[in-house]
C-alpha cells in the first residue's frame, strides 16, 4: 500500500510574546477533512515563540489512486479554563508526485513546519550503491572499516522540452571523481527525415488515442525518455515506469516493456496521466501527459497564382503534402494532425490538382505578390467551414513566412497549470532540487472572433520559407495561432506574448526561432488548443 507520511515538527508563533505567554495551544490536524484525533494535544507556549514537537506528530496517508490530498492544521489558544480563541488555520494541498520535502507555511498569527516522508520506497537521496562489505575483528585486532563520500544525490529528470534548453541543463553538483559522467539525452531534434516515425518528437505533452487505421499516419506510440540521469551507475534495468491517473480514468499502455531510460506508450483512456519512474522502488522522476483521442482536422490548400511563372509559387502539390506531413510531426505533440480534405467541391473557380485537398486558384497579382497581411483575400477563397484553409502565395507586404488571417478565439482568455513537473519545466519545476511548482498562467488570444466568414480558419504561406522544414514549421506555428496560442518570447513585450518566457527558443510558438530549434509544444499549450472551436468542432 503506497503510504505518505505527514509529519508536523514545529510551530512558530508570530503573535507578540506578551499576548500568549501562559496560554495553551490546542491544534487539530485534519487530512482531507478528516480530523486525526490522536494529535489533538495541549502545549504550553514557551516565551521564545518557537516550539518543536517532540516527538513529532505523524500521520500516514494512503495515496493509492490519488493525485492529491489536503492537510490542514487548526490552532486555538486557550487561557485558563474558559477562554479559547482561534488564531486561524493553515492548509496545504500535497500534490502528486508527493515528493519528500519540508514545507513551511504561515498565516498572520503563526507558522508550521511539516515534512512529507515516503515510506518503504527506498532512499532517493543517496547513490544507491550495493551493500557495503565490512570485516569483523577480534577484540585486540586493528581492522578498521572506513566509509564515506560526499553525498551523491540521485537526480533523474524527464524534461518535456527536447533538446533540453542549455540554461536548464543540470547539474552544479561536485561529484567524487570516478563516479562517472552524467548522461543526458538530446533526441528529439527533428530534421525532416520523412517518412520517419510520425512521433519522432519525444516527451510530448499529449499521447493520443489512435485507432488501428490511424496508426499508418499518426504512429503507434510516443516515446517518453529520461533526459538526465545521475549517477550514471544507475542500472537501466532497475528503472521501472508505472502510471497513475491524475484526472479522469486516464490510462496509457506501455509498448515493449516498462523498464529502462525510455519507454513507448500508447493512449488508452482519456484524461491526465502521471508517469512515475522508480529506481529500486524509490520515486526518482515524474512526467505528466494528457491522453485524448487523436483529433483529425481537415484542411485544404489553395495554390494561388496570378497567371505568370513569376507569380506562381514554386511549391508543387507533392511538396505541399510533405509540408503538411512535417507540420503534423509537430502538431501531434498536441494530439492533433491535419489531414487533406476529401471533399472535392470547389468555389471561386478553384481547380483540383489531382492531389486531394490541393487546388489551383488564379487571383489578381496583388493578392499573390506583396499581399496585404491584414486584409488578404486569398484565404477566403474556396474555403469550407471548419476546414482549415491554406493559401500558398509568393509573399506578403510584411515579408512574413506565413500569417493567420482568420480564426475564432478559444473559450477562455488564459489557461493555468500547477502540477509537477511544471509545464515545460518552468522553474520552480517541482523536481528536486527545485522547489514545489507554482501556478503558471498562459495568456491566449481573446475569445473575440476574427473571422470574415462563419467557421473560417485560414492562413497563407509564402515562398519566403526556404526549405520543407521551414514550410512545415511555419504551418504548425501559424496553425497554433489559429487555435488561440500566442507567441512564446524571450522577454515581455508586444501584444502577442503569452506571458511565459520559457523555453525561450525551443518552443514552436517562439516568434522568430527557426524550425530547426523551435519544435516543442508544452502541456499548457496542449490544454489551450482544446478550447478552440476548431478543435471542439471535430
Amino acid at each position, binding site marked *: 500500500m503506497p503510504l505518505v507520511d505527514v509529519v508536523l515538527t514545529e510551530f512558530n508563533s508570530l503573535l507578540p510574546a506578551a499576548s500568549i505567554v501562559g496560554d495553551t495551544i490546542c491544534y487539530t490536524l485534519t487530512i482531507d477533512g478528516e480530523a486525526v484525533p490522536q494529535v489533538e494535544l495541549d502545549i504550553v507556549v514557551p516565551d521564545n515563540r518557537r516550539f518543536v514537537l517532540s516527538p513529532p506528530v505523524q500521520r500516514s496517508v494512503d495515496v493509492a489512486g490519488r493525485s492529491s490530498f489536503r492537510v490542514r492544521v487548526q490552532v486555538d489558544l486557550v487561557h485558563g479554563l474558559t477562554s479559547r480563541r482561534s488564531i486561524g488555520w493553515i492548509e496545504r494541498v500535497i500534490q502528486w508526485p508527493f515528493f519528500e520535502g519540508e514545507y513551511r507555511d504561515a498565516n498572520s498569527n503563526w507558522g508550521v513546519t511539516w515534512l512529507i516522508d515516503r515510506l518503504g520506497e527506498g*532512499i532517493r537521496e*543517496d*547513490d544507491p*550503491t*550495493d*551493500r*557495503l*562489505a*565490512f*570485516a*569483523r*575483528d*577480534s*577484540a585486540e*585486532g586493528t*581492522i*578498521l*572499516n*572506513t*566509509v*564515506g*563520500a*560526499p553525498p*551523491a544525490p540521485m537526480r533523474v529528470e524527464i524534461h518535456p522540452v527536447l*533538446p533540453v534548453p542549455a540554461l536548464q*541543463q*543540470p*547539474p*552544479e553538483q*561536485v*561529484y*567524487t*571523481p*570516478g*563516479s*562517472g*559522467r*552524467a*548522461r*543526458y*539525452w*538530446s*533526441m528529439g531534434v527533428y530534421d525532416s527525415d520523412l517518412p520517419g516515425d510520425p512521433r519522432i518528437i519525444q516527451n510530448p505533452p499529449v499521447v493520443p488515442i489512435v485507432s488501428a487505421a490511424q496508426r499508418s499516419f499518426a504512429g503507434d506510440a510516443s516515446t517518453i525518455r529520461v533526459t*538526465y540521469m545521475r*549517477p*550514471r*551507475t544507475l542500472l537501466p534495468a532497475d528503472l521501472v515506469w508505472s502510471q497513475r491517473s491524475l484526472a479522469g480514468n486516464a490510462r496509457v499502455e506501455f509498448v515493449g516493456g516498462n523498464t529502462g531510460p525510455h519507454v513507448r506508450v500508447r493512449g488508452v483512456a482519456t484524461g491526465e496521466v502521471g508517469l512515475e519512474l522508480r529506481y529500486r522502488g524509490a520515486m526518482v522522476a515524474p512526467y505528466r501527459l494528457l491522453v485524448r483521442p487523436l483529433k483529425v482536422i481537415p484542411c485544404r490548400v489553395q495554390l494561388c497564382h496570378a497567371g505568370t511563372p513569376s507569380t506562381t509559387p514554386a511549391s508543387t502539390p507533392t511538396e505541399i503534402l510533405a509540408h503538411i506531413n512535417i507540420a503534423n510531426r509537430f502538431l501531434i505533440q498536441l494530439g492533433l494532425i491535419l489531414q487533406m480534405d476529401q471533399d472535392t467541391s470547389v468555389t471561386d473557380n478553384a481547380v483540383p490538382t489531382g492531389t486531394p485537398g490541393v487546388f489551383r486558384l488564379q487571383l489578381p497579382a496583388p493578392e499573390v505578390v506583396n499581399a496585404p497581411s491584414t486584409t488578404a483575400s486569398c484565404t477566403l477563397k474556396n474555403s469550407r467551414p471548419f476546414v482549415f484553409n491554406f493559401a500558398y502565395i509568393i509573399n506578403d507586404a510584411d515579408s512574413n513566412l506565413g500569417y493567420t488571417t482568420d480564426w475564432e478565439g478559444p473559450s477562455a482568455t488564459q489557461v493555468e497549470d500547477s502540477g509537477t513537473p511544471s509545464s515545460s519545466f518552468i522553474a520552480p519545476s517541482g523536481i528536486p532540487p527545485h522547489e514545489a511548482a507554482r501556478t503558471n498562467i498562459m495568456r491566449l488570444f481573446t475569445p473575440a472572433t476574427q473571422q470574415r466568414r462563419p467557421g473560417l480558419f485560414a492562413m497563407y504561406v509564402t515562398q519566403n520559407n526556404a526549405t520543407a522544414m521551414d514550410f512545415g514549421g511555419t504551418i504548425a506555428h501559424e496553425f497554433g495561432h489559429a487555435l488561440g496560442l500566442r507567441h512564446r518570447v524571450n522577454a515581455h513585450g508586444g501584444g502577442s506574448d503569452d506571458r511565459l518566457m520559457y523555453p525561450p527558443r525551443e518552443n514552436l510558438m517562439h516568434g522568430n526561432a527557426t524550425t530547426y530549434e523551435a519544435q516543442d509544444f508544452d502541456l499548457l499549450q496542449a490544454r489551450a488548443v482544446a478550447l478552440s472551436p476548431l478543435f471542439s468542432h471535430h
Partner: protein
Amino acid sequence: MSEPPTSSSDPLLKDDPVGTGSYEVASGDCISSIAYEHGFFWKTLWEHPNNEALRTARGDGHILLPGDRVTVPPLVPRTEDCQTARRHRFKREGVPAKLRICVTVLRPSPETVSTDVQTQNNGTEVTIREPEAPTRWSREPLANKHWVLAVGGELTTGTTDDHGLVEAWISPGARSGRLTVDPGGGAERVMVFDLGALDPEDSSTGVAQRLRNLGFDAADPTNQASLATALEGFQHVKGIEKNGRADSRTRDALKETHGA
C-alpha cells in the same frame, strides 16, 4: 563477498583461493565466524599448522576470499580441575567479536571547485562533461555524532569519537547489519553492510569493495574498465599517478585509507 570478476582481471591482482582443509570459505565467513561455528577460539584455528599457507597468503584471518580452504581440526575435550562444591565461571575466548567503522566525509577544497560544464554530442546522446574533479580533497571524520547500530537483531547506540569511530561488540556469527549515523540530523547516513564480506586487499573484489566503502563507486566492479574508473578517482584524490591500475602503491594507499 562478491562473485569473482567475469571479465579480464588486472594481472596485478590475485583472485585465486588459497589454503588447504575441508572447510571452504563462503560469503560472510572469516576466521572468527568459522571458529565460532565450530566451537574454537579463533586463534586456535588460525594458528593451526595446516593453515600456514592461508595465514601467509592472507595475513589476517578476518579477511578471507570465498573459496579459500581452512583446516578445522576435530574438537578435543579439555579438562579443567576445579574444587567441588563451589561455583565456577568459564569464559569462552574470542566471543564476541568487534566491529570498528570509521565514518568520514570526503570534501573538495572549495577553491578547487570548477563550475564549467561542457557537452559532448554524438548525435542522439549528449554526455555532459561535468566540471573537472577538484584537485584537492580532504577526508573529514563525522565526529561526535549519535549512531545506532543494528546487528543480528541487537541494537547498540553510541556517539562517534573525534575520529568518527563507531566501535561495538558483535556476535562473531552475525552476517549483516545496518548503521545509522546522526539519525534525523543533517548528516544522517544509513549504511547497510555485510559482515565478514570484505575480501583481501590484493583481490579485484577486495579492491572494488574498499573503493565502494570509501565512496568511489565502480559502476560494475566485475568489469575491469569500470573498476579502472573508480581506481582513477581514488588515485586522483590521493594525488598519485592516475593509471586505473591496482598497482602496489595504489593498493597500499587504499589499505591505509580504508584501514583493512
